[in-house]
């Protein structure tokens, strides 16, 4: 049996054992950083799901002028029919709209009951084909149609959708920036922890080089130690975010159902989980190799 892999693992475990506190401190710091990032990602994932679900329900309502001419009406209908992204066109006359409206609000509002005339216009409800560009298509078409003669106004909840989208862009940017800052911060933490680990075993490492150890032999246990710090921090953070997710689901089930309208409050997506773990691996290797290289390159000073 070749001792190489066994020795690396043994040496790594012995390093960790002799610098237990330092190792745990580094894991804890990485865990906190990953957890904070994980919570923001959890928020992002669910808001994104919410936005997508809203996106599916968005329809464009085109309100017509009361005095619209038949030719203009036909022209508008032609525009609807010539757009292949529109799935369905439903015409709702002002009388039908008023009937629907009164049916919904007559018993609930004295004001509605007291109205003696119909204030609602004729309208078209347009449903667009689903796809990633759905909102853009609605936006583009509404821009085109709103200036047509006979069109009073268009409505698809543009203001709040735009605000929500902007918030999502900000959140994505914030998570990315925050992630990059934490990425370098965590590399620094692991690098320093490995540096301290090296200095606490300096005599042993010095002796290794004098006895003919290769750089690889000295470096691999240090890399494994850094790798373990990064991966342990990442895995623990995923567990803690899962616990937070379960807590939110059980504690706020009623509120979530009303906000998410039948959608489930989701845990992190697989790509995010893989990214967290691979980031743990990368920061572990980068942090430890920078310290190990720095130390080994300084060996045998002139």
């Amino acid at each position, binding site marked *: *049996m*070749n*001792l*190489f892999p066994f*020795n690396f693992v043994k040496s790594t475990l012995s390093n960790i054992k002799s610098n237990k506190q330092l190792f745990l401190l580094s894991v804890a710091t990485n865990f906190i950083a990953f957890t904070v990032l994980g919570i923001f990602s959890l928020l992002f994932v669910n808001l994104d799901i919410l936005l997508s679900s809203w996106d599916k329900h968005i329809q464009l309502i085109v309100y017509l002028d009361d005095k619209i001419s038949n030719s203009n009406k036909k022209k508008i209908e032609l525009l609807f029919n010539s757009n292949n992204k529109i799935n369905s066109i439903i015409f709702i006359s002002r009388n039908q709209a008023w009937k629907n409206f009164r049916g919904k609000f007559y018993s609930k509002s004295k004001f509605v009951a007291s109205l003696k005339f119909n204030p609602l216009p004729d309208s078209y409800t347009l449903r667009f084909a689903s796809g990633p560009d759905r909102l853009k298509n609605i936006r583009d078409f509404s821009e085109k149609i709103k200036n047509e003669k006979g069109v009073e106004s268009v409505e698809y909840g543009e203001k709040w959708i735009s605000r929500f989208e902007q918030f999502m862009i900000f959140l994505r940017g914030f998570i990315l920036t925050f992630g990059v800052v934490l990425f370098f911060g965590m590399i620094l933490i692991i690098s320093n922890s490995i540096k301290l680990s090296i200095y606490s075993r300096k*005599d*042993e490492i010095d*002796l*290794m*080089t*004098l*006895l*003919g*150890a*290769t*750089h690889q*032999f000295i470096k691999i246990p240090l890399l494994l130690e850094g790798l373990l710090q990064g991966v342990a921090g990442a895995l623990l953070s995923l567990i803690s975010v899962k616990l937070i997710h379960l807590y939110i689901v059980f504690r706020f089930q009623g509120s979530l159902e009303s906000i998410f309208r039948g959608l489930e409050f989701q845990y992190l997506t697989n790509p995010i989980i893989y990214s967290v773990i691979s980031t743990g691996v990368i920061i572990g290797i980068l942090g430890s190799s920078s310290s190990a290289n720095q130390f*080994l*390159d300084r*060996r*045998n000073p*002139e």
Partner: protein
Amino acid sequence: MIKVFNLYKSYGGITPVLMDISFDIQDGEFVLLTGQSGAGKTTLFKVLFGWEKFDRGQILVGGINVGKLNEKNLYQLRRKVGFVFQDYKLLVKKTVFENVAFAQQIVGANMKTVRTKTWNALKNVGLVKKKDSYPSQLSGGEQQRVSIARAIVNDPELILADEPTGNLDSEISKEILALFEKINEQGKTIIIATHSAEILSEKERRHLLLKRGKLLQS
């Protein structure tokens, strides 16, 4: 085994430590490197071992051009040379057996070889009974014998011993010297840096005499 040509070494380019040193040592020789404290014995050893760099000259150890080695392939030289340190350099948390086996593990030997070679090396230096002791439980002489066992366990062609009896009394020094003679009889080249009177007067041997960084006798 060793060829040194016009070797110069200084610290910071100002303080000369070794000046125009040239000598040859054949395979299987037993050589004493002598000189007063500060003559440059330890520095010469460190240079031969690739522990310190030198300014000018050529050094060949077992066919390896020491000046051409970089940090990453220095191990090739160090595996050819067993070094015995004056301060033993034993790992205090490891037993005698583990300290000797450590040198074997570093070169990637398999478990069976580690056990056999470590056992043989300990037998060679007469420390089998102490294999489970820790360095702090050993006398100075015993610690030096562990250091010698560690130096020979990888079967190097050359042993460099820097003041191996420096911290030991004369009786133990003779035992250590006898040990080196035994190793030499097995065909190893031995160079001992010393200014110990016991070692120098023991037997007629080849001397390299250093004085203030210059080789007076080779």
